[in-house]
């Protein structure tokens, strides 16, 4: 029987290796798979390349992953956000690499990676520093820059509903990058607010078909990043927490 449900977040992230590329869903906190990220912090894989629109906020979730020294490189469109503390400091001190990509180009590169398109042309960034060193080609009188598809070893995303095949729905604008990241990653790990029976999601309303999903963990009451930040929470890996106790 096909059953993609796993027992814990720890199980879900267990195969992430040092040096892997990991796409993490979310636009700011909306859609951020906080529990899976925290499991990845506990897991400890290092030298990761992380793809996310931002760099996290406060000292939880993605920001905590970065603070824990696990991220060698960020690929993102907007590394500065409100409560963005961790990344700026590491970046200024040269401890983390940044590949800055326009948000739509980032989305299309991820979609291309998932769709088997190694490269495509876009007008975005032509004539700007972000097109420097890239191939420019003219089609029907307009210049376009060639951009490359982007794949990942793992994607960590957050869904609203999931069934055991891995069919997913999302909540409002928390959908953002999740469906295309699920396509672009070799292995997609999902935390979902709710597991439903097969057929519990109308086939017409499936947003991410199960073919793009590998492991699912139900987190019925996920933590909200902004709430954690507001409460001054600092996420420390389980080991360190253990060491402290």
């Amino acid at each position, binding site marked *: 029987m096909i059953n993609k449900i796993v027992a814990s977040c720890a199980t879900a992230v267990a195969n992430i290796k040092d040096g892997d590329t990991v796409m993490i869903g979310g636009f700011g906190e909306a859609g951020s798979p906080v529990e899976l990220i925290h499991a990845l912090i506990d897991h400890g894989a290092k030298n990761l390349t992380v793809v996310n629109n931002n760099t996290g906020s406060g000292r939880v979730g993605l920001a905590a992953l970065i603070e824990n020294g696990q991220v060698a490189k960020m690929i993102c469109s*907007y590394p500065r956000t409100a409560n963005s503390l961790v990344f700026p400091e590491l970046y200024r001190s040269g401890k983390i690499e940044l590949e800055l990509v326009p948000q*739509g*180009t980032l*989305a299309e590169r991820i979609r291309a990676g998932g769709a088997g398109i190694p490269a495509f042309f876009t007008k*975005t960034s032509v004539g700007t520093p972000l097109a420097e060193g890239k191939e420019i080609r003219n089609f029907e009188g307009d210049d376009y820059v060639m951009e490359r598809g982007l794949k990942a070893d793992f994607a960590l995303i957050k869904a609203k509903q999931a069934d055991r095949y891995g069919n997913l729905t999302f909540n409002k*604008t928390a959908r953002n*990058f999740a469906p295309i990241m699920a396509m672009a990653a070799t292995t997609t790990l999902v935390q979902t607010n709710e597991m439903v029976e097969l057929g519990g999601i109308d086939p017409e309303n499936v947003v991410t078909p199960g073919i793009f999903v590998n492991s699912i963990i139900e987190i019925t009451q996920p933590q909200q990043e902004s709430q954690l930040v507001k409460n001054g929470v600092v996420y420390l890996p389980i080991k360190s927490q253990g060491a402290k106790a």
Partner: protein
Amino acid sequence: MSTLATSNQHANSQVAQVGWNREQMAHRCAQDIEEGSYVNLGIGIPEKVAQYVPDGREVIYHTENGLLGMGNSPSADELDPDLINAGKKPVTAIPGAAYFHHGDSFAMIRGNHIDVCVLGAMQVSEKGDLANWSTGAADAIPAVGGAMDLVAGVKTIYIITQHTTKTGDAKILAECSFPLTGQKVVNRIYTDLCVIDVTNKGLALIELAPGISFDYVQARTGVELLNATEQLDAKGFDNSSVNSSREVQS
């Protein structure tokens, strides 16, 4: 001279009181948002445009993080951290809204489906080049977001900006000195002092804020402006000029 300079700076820093204030700039821009338009509003003053679109015009707002049919700010009851705009502020969705993923959202932008985008600016050039994402300073953390995609893909780009920087430097220039967001992308500029169209012949000042003279604006602009206010006074506001200039540019 130093006294005069200080005085000038002082005048410039209070320029909002001289011409249009932020609300009035948004109001002026909103008059050009047509019935039935699909509109993306940038963070800051551009966000304010929505509240001044004339009554009776139905306009649909796009936010690039995956929503078409963005509504007002939520009440405490409606608030959902999963329903936010591109500025990561809580919003609502109107009846008839649609959610979609980032790939589809930027397909709307890149594929020329959005009619109007209103953005802020650091600098705008005579040719309609826009710089609004980076000063190019070495210690700055670069962040671009969706600005480059929006200017490259949206049919009409409106800019709302103070006419000069806080220190009185011109933001409307022959060439941008900051790294570009896009080349030849701007159609119209709304400042605290005036409205300027980007045309094939150069920057055409088409409207002045009350009490502001053409010479006053020219003195605060880094490139020679065409005075098109009289023509427009004669024949009325000619919105079609925006689109025709855009066609030539893109």
